[in-house]
């Protein structure tokens, strides 16, 4: 870390030392100072100055839900109409995957057609994988789905798959359209950017309550929340992808005499397709990340299984359902990536019959119909027989008990060490900072890094947090995230450097962090609590595990992107291996490391709400309390406070990355 600090802060060390020194002194002596001057405002934002924004927001929300009207219909009618528009296709997909089609309601319902059999669904996906790439991918995708069947997760997995099938196209199309708008109009882009920042950083819990009110109770609300959460990367990627289309292609389109519409849909979008598929992939992954939270408001499926298993401390059940989410994520991720790199097939000879031209399509349809009919007589063909499912639940519980009984004391000692020498001192430092100085300090730091505009923005955001009466909780948040980001970087960057230099390490580490990112954190949160008790340390472990991935990925990326000539030059000058790493590779990888740091901070902040489930006293808890009390205003204010911290951190780190890139003479 030291070299990083040296590299970034080159030439301005006195300023930073001074800033830190003053902050440290004020933080340590703020309490005696308040006692000596009898000025309580030093440590606590005066109640009288607090803005009562949460009350207003709640009132506006109430008006929106109960009274707002466009004359002919109310606002609620509008959202309910949208809700029914989403629900109709969702029900169709769900019926097709698992429920079967029927008419009439309740006990009068009559089944018309069964759902697709499990064999048919696996065949379809494997065939798609083969179509997109090759037999290896088909085997992988098929294998993931067979896992779902064998471990008894089929029914829930299909419910989750149904919501992914609806949420992903909504997110992709919506994101693409907004991205195009931003590409066409710089004004729209400027207006959209802060909204996107908020969509990505305000914790989902903060807007769940208003969504429930507007879209009704049930899977649609969960879908809406998922789309809001998963769409922003698609918007950004779309804009970048379109801007990245070479001007030559655009020129060629113009020479052909394309109309504006043809230009967009026949030239620009197809040329940007490979990059756009990165966005699609992000939408899929984020939708699956939302599975647990969505299940809290009625989405059901695998997320619900994870939650209920862990609530009755069935750790094995939780792990199996969690791994089912990972399997689904891997299958869909690899499939979408394969489609993004797929090359066009040669057209089949026109003279052949339909069956010969489309052998795959025909055989898949035959299997669908065949298994459907056979399933009427043999239930095992329609749905995987329950008696043939496996479970490893007992194994996990026993393993957990063994670890708990034999190693608890060791863990306790490790925990005490970290608490005494890292967590508690940092906590004391941050919670001691008087709010007034905190605002000035963050303003100064941001000004130094990114100019006066950034400084003013950071100070204003800090002031807004203080004025909402959330200063203390915000400081706890910064402390918890700060420590976690530090540890994630300490662990992640070396791993990333290793992965960047060694391809075998890369494949192992890559699989490991992929699993960590898609495995719902709730799955490992409960075992962590069993071993480390409720408290900041457990929360920190969960955050570190989740936020590790970008630190590793970007470090590996940064190392791999270094031009070989640079390394050759180093070797020629007689660098040792160590010197090569510290003097050449790391400085050159700094911009990438900073980007990784940025993403690590974002992920750490997005885990806050989950750590509130362990029991922390930060902004995440504030959001969670608001959710359980259905207090819209409180939730949104606390959510905005989290977003402000995230945005400030993002801007500061990005400015650092920019400065370091300029210093290195990179683009």
């Amino acid at each position, binding site marked *: 870390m030291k070299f990083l600090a040296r590299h970034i802060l080159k030439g301005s060390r006195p300023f930073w030392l001074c800033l830190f020194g003053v902050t440290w002194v004020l933080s340590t002596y703020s309490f005696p100072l308040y006692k000596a001057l009898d000025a309580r405002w030093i440590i606590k934002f005066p109640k009288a100055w607090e803005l009562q924004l949460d009350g207003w927001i709640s009132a506006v929300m109430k008006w929106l839900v109960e009274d707002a009207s466009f004359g002919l219909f109310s606002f609620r009618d509008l959202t309910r109409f949208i809700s029914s528009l989403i629900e109709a296709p969702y029900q169709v997909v769900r019926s097709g995957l698992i429920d079967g089609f029927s008419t009439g309601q309740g006990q009068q319902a009559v089944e018309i057609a069964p759902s697709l059999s499990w064999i048919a669904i696996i065949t379809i996906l494997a065939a798609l994988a083969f179509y997109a790439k090759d037999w290896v991918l088909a085997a992988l995708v098929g294998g993931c789905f067979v896992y779902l069947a064998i471990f008894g997760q089929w029914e829930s997995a299909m419910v989750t798959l149904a919501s992914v099938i609806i949420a992903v196209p909504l997110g992709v199309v919506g994101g693409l359209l907004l991205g195009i708008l931003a590409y066409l109009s710089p004004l729209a882009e400027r207006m959209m950017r802060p909204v996107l920042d908020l969509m990505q950083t305000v914790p989902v819990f903060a807007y769940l309550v208003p969504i429930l009110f507007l879209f009704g109770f049930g899977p649609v609300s969960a879908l809406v929340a998922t789309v809001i959460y998963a769409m922003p990367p698609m918007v950004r990627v779309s804009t970048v992808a379109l801007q990245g289309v070479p001007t030559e292609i655009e020129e060629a389109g113009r020479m052909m005499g394309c109309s504006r519409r043809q230009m967009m849909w026949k030239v620009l979008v197809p040329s940007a397709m490979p990059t756009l598929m990165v966005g699609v992939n992000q939408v899929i992954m984020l939708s699956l990340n939302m599975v647990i939270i969505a299940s809290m408001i009625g989405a059901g499926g695998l997320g619900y299984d994870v939650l209920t298993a862990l609530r009755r401390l069935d750790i094995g059940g939780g792990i199996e359902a969690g791994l089912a989410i990972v399997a689904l994520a891997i299958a869909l991720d690899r499939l979408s990536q394969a489609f993004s790199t797929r090359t066009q097939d040669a057209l089949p000879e026109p003279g052949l019959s339909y069956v010969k031209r489309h052998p795959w399509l025909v055989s898949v349809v035959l299997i669908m119909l065949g298994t459907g009919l056979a399933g009427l007589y043999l239930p095992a063909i329609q749905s995987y027989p329950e008696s043939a499912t496996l479970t490893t639940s007992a194994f996990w519980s026993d393993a957990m008990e063994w670890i708990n009984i034999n190693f608890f004391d060791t863990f306790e000692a490790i925990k005490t060490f970290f608490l005494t020498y890292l967590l508690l001192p940092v906590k004391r430092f941050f919670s001691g900072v008087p709010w007034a100085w905190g605002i000035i300090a963050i303003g100064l730091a941001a000004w130094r890094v990114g100019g006066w505009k950034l400084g003013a923005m950071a100070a204003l955001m800090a002031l807004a947090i203080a004025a909402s009466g959330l200063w203390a909780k915000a400081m706890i948040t910064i402390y918890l995230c700060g420590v976690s980001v530090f540890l994630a970087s300490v662990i992640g960057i070396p791993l990333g450097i290793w992965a960047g230099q060694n391809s075998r390490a890369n494949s192992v580490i890559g699989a490991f962090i992929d699993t960590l990112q898609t495995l719902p954190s709730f799955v490992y949160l409960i075992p962590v609590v069993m071993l480390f008790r*409720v408290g900041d340390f457990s929360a920190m472990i969960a955050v570190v595990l989740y936020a590790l991935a970008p630190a590793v990925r970007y470090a590996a990326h940064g190392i791999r992107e270094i031009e070989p000539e640079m390394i050759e030059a180093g070797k020629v000058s007689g660098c040792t291996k160590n010197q090569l790493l510290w003097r050449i590779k790391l400085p050159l990888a700094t911009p990438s490391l900073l980007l990784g740091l940025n993403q690590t901070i974002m992920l750490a902040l997005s885990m806050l709400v989950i750590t509130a489930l*362990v029991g922390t006293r930060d902004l995440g808890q504030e959001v969670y309390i608001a959710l359980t009390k259905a207090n819209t205003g409180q939730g949104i204010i606390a959510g905005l406070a989290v977003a402000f911290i995230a945005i400030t951190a993002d801007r500061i780190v990005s400015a650092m990355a920019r400065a370091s890139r300029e210093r290195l003479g990179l683009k």
Partner: protein
Amino acid sequence: MKSTYTISAAILAAVCASSAYAEVESLDPIKLTTHDWTGQIVNTFIMGEVLKKAGYNIEYVQADYIAQFAGLKTGDLHVAMEIWETTGREAMDEATATGNVVNVGESGMMAVEEWWYPSYMEEVCPGLPNWEALNDCAQEFATPETAPLGRYLGGPVTWGGFDDERVEALGMDFEVVHAGTDAALFAELESAYQRKAPIVLWLYDPHWAPTKYEGSFVEFPAYSSECYSDPSVGINPSAAYDCGKPTGPIWKVAWSGVADKWPGAAAAIEAFTISNADVGSLVAKVDLEGVSIEDVVAEWMAANEATWSTWIN
């Protein structure tokens, strides 16, 4: 899952040639809410199955415990089977005040919430379950973070319960640590129980935990409403909350339109009662033995036909 029911119900209906049942007022489904704890889901499924026997259509909707009131007020949701006096009173009063939600009476279960310890602690702290005996061996419960004070693991802050105030008022040498969810609460209990390590924490009944783990609730000075509101009442003359927690009924609530649209169903919902012990054993079957909720409910329905058939007549 919901629709598997509809399907099996459909087959059943087809077999029984639907006319076997009495005519019901409306075939629109009655929406019962389910939350995230097993006891509530079991009760709701029992109610739902009984209503199905009477010929009504049922839909189970997963909804948040407090947020559901917004849906009950507008008629999006119809029936909630468990509102605990101890945790849901405020929200329920606010909703019934609007006139759109009605309290349909007690469910027969009593909510018990109190400090709880595993029975192996009785050897370490003679005199338990008395609270003074607990206080005398507070240091047994200490952890590095709380030492020299004992550590008491309280429920999520949203559950209320005034534990911080209680510790203060009774002058107890404990520090209250709040778990974030009940899952975290029981994870710690499981961990401590496996190691026979000291623990005292918030537990509630009906729940599977008091069935699975041997132990008892701590006995505090008896609760009275004056004890909470009037500092002068109780052991400590200058502080309120110097007593145990209240116990209270678990209520059923419904959208006010239920009685107009499905009068028969409303009567059945009002008649529903079940005891703590019954629910406790059903919950233990689901959460400890891993039997599915549907099977447990079906078994109960078969064994208690005499009970539930009176609800729908």
